[in-house]
């Protein structure tokens, strides 16, 4: 029997960008039932959020976004999460998102930087 040539079943992207002078490490994974996105400037996962699409009876879906571990008083984190789940949904996927954000600042510029870095390298 030769080598097990199976590819690892979880596609993953791993890269860094600089946002407002802060080095930001990003990891994006695609599991069978979730997307996992990690963006960190502080060496830990930071706050972990969860977002999912709820298909209603009407045409437009709604989204449920919540913090599952960490800062619950920083609306910018929820805003990033919401923008990403909407992007996932408009790309055609209904999978929920687990997002971890370990950020040094919570400015609008950082929000835009994170969202655009993730969307540019998306796995959906």
């Amino acid at each position: 029997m030769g080598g097990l040539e199976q590819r690892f079943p979880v596609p993953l992207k791993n890269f860094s960008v600089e946002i407002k002078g802060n080095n930001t490490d990003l990891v994006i994974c695609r599991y069978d039932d979730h997307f996992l996105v990690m963006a960190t400037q502080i060496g830990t996962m930071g706050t972990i959020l969860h977002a999912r699409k709820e298909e209603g009876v009407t045409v437009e879906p709604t989204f449920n976004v919540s913090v599952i571990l960490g800062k619950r008083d920083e609306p910018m984190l929820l805003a990033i999460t919401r923008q990403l789940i909407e992007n996932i949904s408009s790309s055609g996927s209904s999978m929920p998102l687990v997002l971890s954000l370990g950020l040094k600042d919570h400015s609008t510029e950082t929000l835009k930087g994170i969202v655009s870095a993730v969307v540019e390298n998306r796995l959906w």
Partner: protein
Amino acid sequence: MNMSSPSSSFGKASDSEAASKSAAASAASGGVQVTTFTELVDEVTLHFQIIHLAKQIYVWIGSDSAKLGNLYAAAPTRPNNSVSVTSILGGASDNTGSGIARRLVLKTGLNIIVACNIPKNNPMLEANAEKKLMEKLITLGYSRPKSRSPGA
């Protein structure tokens, strides 16, 4: 933030009587170091993914499917060097994986997030998964130095 931890990247698959095949891949292309490997244990294929951040590690264990599974956060807790574990996603009616999270922290002193997607009600499988993971973490250089000095 560049990590200079030793990266063990070898890609051989070997047959052995113990029926455990493993192919390990470790990539640190920009950003953080990610280690993935697959092992065959007791005729079950287990996939492992370790994402190394500077002060925390994330671990995913999958078996038949690549679903995320139950998510747990675990960390050492002062003052007694005990461990706290909490379920942060899934795991409401089954806590497969929480024991793994707890014991990984006990043995390594790390701050850990564990995503565990192995079949429930299979303690042997859980124990084997934990063992393989622990072996890999030790290979990668993570283990708590044993200090037995009193009062330290």
